[in-house]
């Protein structure tokens, strides 16, 4: 971005947001959005490790048919924790809370978010929820699946009430963050930073924030009703008391479908940044991408019923939901083609962040087309609640969101910490994760087509070989993430000093020093052009 920001030569002794204040207390009471971003980073990555271990356990158990290491009840708990942790504690907060917190103010040339205190509060609220969730591990566990479907979740003897409260509390945190981001984007843009000069990452975070504040309250109420149902037997969902268990599904998916976009839109934003930066080319169709984010956010409120084609909902409802779901496919396709055209006649290099971005395109293409197969109502009747769905949403959530998160972390790492990591090893992590991912999840499409239901502790022998392949793939993914942990830790301890703009990117955050000072910019930036002016 050709901004009139000054970037003087910085010496290593310079004051920045990391070394300006010292001591643990200065971290836990910091109102600096960058430090709060790091707090989120440490907590979310830790939860990711926990959720990942549960995932490995699932795959280990499914290596062969029959009981291997777990009892059926233990398996159901492991499967529930994997889902709940990954959704509520990793993928939903992931990109917005870590990268959004850190780079939203930087990319729009602001000193901080609009409400710094609220920002710190949301981290504490998030941690409170997370701790309650972790406590259930020691106080009865849960086995409902992350979807908490009634009436099973009303009847089960496990600590479901507590887990529901935890998800409720984490939802609060998500609402607070969303609110903060929306106000920040509207109020704190630097002079000259018009809405159509903000980077696409900001558009994505902004659309996500809108979804967060509109959809999450519905989840909150639903979960609260479920908790009341369990403790007082109010009879909203329990058929024995005249309630309707399917109503819960409507409520739940009214949040959780938009939540799918809460998880994927930020990833799309990151990928737009990466592709522009590493192709050294202006993004193709800036407005189309920006508006398709908004479009997706809007339509996503009206497609929840596609999770319920076989739940007993009426034929008309099924058809309308199938139709609307097809419509969400269009803006998604538009984005894919825009990224592709950005590569056209670019000047492309393949550093690790770009590898993750290209990996995203690859996996998201597969996740997208299989999404259409699921939106098609007749095929969905066969695929619904089989491993086909499991494979599909892992292609979108892991292949999409996690690939983007990894790419984003590698891309902005030099800015966040002022250090460089070992590029060769970073590329190796990509290779391991990418190959491992496909080995793990591609066979699951076939398993689903063959009819293997999801949430299965045991399966018929016909499904064995594909399950074994899938398990082997999960070890590759595990190695990949362990290696990235190593790459990050060694870079933090002994990485070379990074320059202010190692990738030659044009967005504002690269105009300040690495790491940035407490107030982000040495001189308030004035913006005179769009975010991707590679001329």
């Amino acid at each position, binding site marked *: 971005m050709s901004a009139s920001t000054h970037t003087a030569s910085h010496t290593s002794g310079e004051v920045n947001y990391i070394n300006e204040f010292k001591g643990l207390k200065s971290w836990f009471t910091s109102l600096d959005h960058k430090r709060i971003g790091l707090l989120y980073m440490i907590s979310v990555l830790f939860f990711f490790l926990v959720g990942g271990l549960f995932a490995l356990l699932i795959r280990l158990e499914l290596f062969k048919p029959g009981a291997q290491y777990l009892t059926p009840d233990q398996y159901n708990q492991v499967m529930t924790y994997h889902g709940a942790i990954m959704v509520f504690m990793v993928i939903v907060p992931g990109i917005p809370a870590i990268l959004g917190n850190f780079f939203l103010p930087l990319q729009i040339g602001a000193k901080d978010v609009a409400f710094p205190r609220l920002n710190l509060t949301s981290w504490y609220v998030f941690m409170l929820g997370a701790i309650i969730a972790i406590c259930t591990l020691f106080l009865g566990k849960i086995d409902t699946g992350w979807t908490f479907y009634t009436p099973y979740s009303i009847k089960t003897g496990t600590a479901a009430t507590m887990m529901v409260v935890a998800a409720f509390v984490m939802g609060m945190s998500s609402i607070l963050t969303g609110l903060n981001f929306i106000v920040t984007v509207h109020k704190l843009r630097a002079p000259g930073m018009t809405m159509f000069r903000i980077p696409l990452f900001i558009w994505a975070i902004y659309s996500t924030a809108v979804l967060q504040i509109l959809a999450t309250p519905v989840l909150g109420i639903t979960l609260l009703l479920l908790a009341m149902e369990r403790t007082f037997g109010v009879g909203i969902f329990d058929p024995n008391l005249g309630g*309707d268990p399917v109503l819960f599904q409507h409520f739940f998916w009214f949040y959780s479908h938009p939540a799918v976009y809460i998880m994927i839109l930020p990833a799309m934003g990151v990928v737009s940044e990466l592709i522009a930066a590493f*192709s050294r080319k202006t993004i193709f169709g800036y407005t189309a991408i920006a508006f398709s984010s908004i479009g997706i956010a809007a339509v996503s409120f009206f497609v929840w019923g596609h999770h319920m084609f076989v739940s*007993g909902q009426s034929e008309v409802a099924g058809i309308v939901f199938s139709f609307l779901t097809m419509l969400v496919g269009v803006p998604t396709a538009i984005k894919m*083609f825009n990224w592709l055209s950005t*590569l056209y006649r670019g000047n492309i290099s393949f550093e690790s962040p770009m590898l993750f971005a290209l990996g995203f395109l690859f996996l998201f293409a597969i996740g997208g087309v299989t999404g259409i197969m699921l939106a098609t*109502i*007749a*095929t969905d009747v*066969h695929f619904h609640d089989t491993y086909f769905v499991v494979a599909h949403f892992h292609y979108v959530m892991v292949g999409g969101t996690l690939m983007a998160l990894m790419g984003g972390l590698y891309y902005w790492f030099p800015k966040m910490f002022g250090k460089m990591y070992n590029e060769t090893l970073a590329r190796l992590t990509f290779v391991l994760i990418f190959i491992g991912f496909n080995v793990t999840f591609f066979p699951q499409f076939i398993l689903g087509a063959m009819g293997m239901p999801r949430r299965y502790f045991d399966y018929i022998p016909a499904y064995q070989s594909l399950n074994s392949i899938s398990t082997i793939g999960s070890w590759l993914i595990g190695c990949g993430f362990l290696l990235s942990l190593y790459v990050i830790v060694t870079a933090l301890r002994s990485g070379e000093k990074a320059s202010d703009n190692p990738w030659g990117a044009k967005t504002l955050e690269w105009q300040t020093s690495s790491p940035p000072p407490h107030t982000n910019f040495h001189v308030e930036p004035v913006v005179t052009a769009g975010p991707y002016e590679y001329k």
Partner: protein
Amino acid sequence: MFWMQYAFASKFMPTAATDQASQVNNLYSFLLISSFIACVILIGGMIYFAYKYKRQSLTAKSAYITHNTFLEFLWSFIPLVIFLVVFGWGWHIYHQMRQFPKDALEVHVTGKQWAWEATYKSGVRTANLVKVPIDTDVKIILASNDVIHSFYVPSFRIKQDAVPGRYTAVWFNANKLGDFHIFCTEYCGTQHSGMIGKLQVVSREEYDKWLEEEAKFSTLPIAQKGEKLFQIKACSGCHSVADASVKVGPSLFKKFGAKEELTSGDSTGVDENYLRESILNPNAKIVKGFASGVMPSFQGQLSEDELSAIIEYIKSAK
């Protein structure tokens, strides 16, 4: 549509045993082929561009293209058309699935943790077995005793949740003889993955004969019912009841009320609950002189009625 047979789609799917299943296969094949083409364009294009426009030097100029209205129109419009086609096609098939034929053979199926119980019009009841005649419209009326289950027959490409507190239904018309799996696809607790039933498609004659025998059978005195079940469930291969001869397992002759020595060194009295446990969970207590793990568990394979009948039969052997 011979070209569809070439698509590998149906190869990975279980045999299509209804006409509707074949229609779903055709649609799926179309989806697979168009998805494959879309992926070749997207992923192939990405790889091609990445290779062609690889960075030669940092300062090399990249093109400055902000948008292209015609292209953007094309790649919004073409996907939209394809999406609408598959939507309509899917609707067409789904409409047939939801259009219940008149005069269908009706079977009530109830999901419960963790078995499928079927009840026929004549009063015949089965556990984890739905037997139907070939080339006949069959309507399954679903209910649930406890939590939500989902009745799924992969070979028929049909699935419907069984929801407590209301009825739901599916129908099919099988055109192939054979045994097909019934899976539960809605998570329902501990034995969710063990809730597997058998959907057996037989000829009309065989079906009528079976139904008649079952009906007769259901009016038998309970101990005689147990005797029949003892044969059907193959208990008789391992246990004798008429005399004390030992087969694979201990004889059950004069067993009820006796004392049983266990490998654990304890002994236990044989009552109804001991028999129940020995059948449902045979490895809980092992009879002295026999190995653990030989007798399979019959958990989920016997209905409550059947279990009582077998126990009455064992009690009658004195």
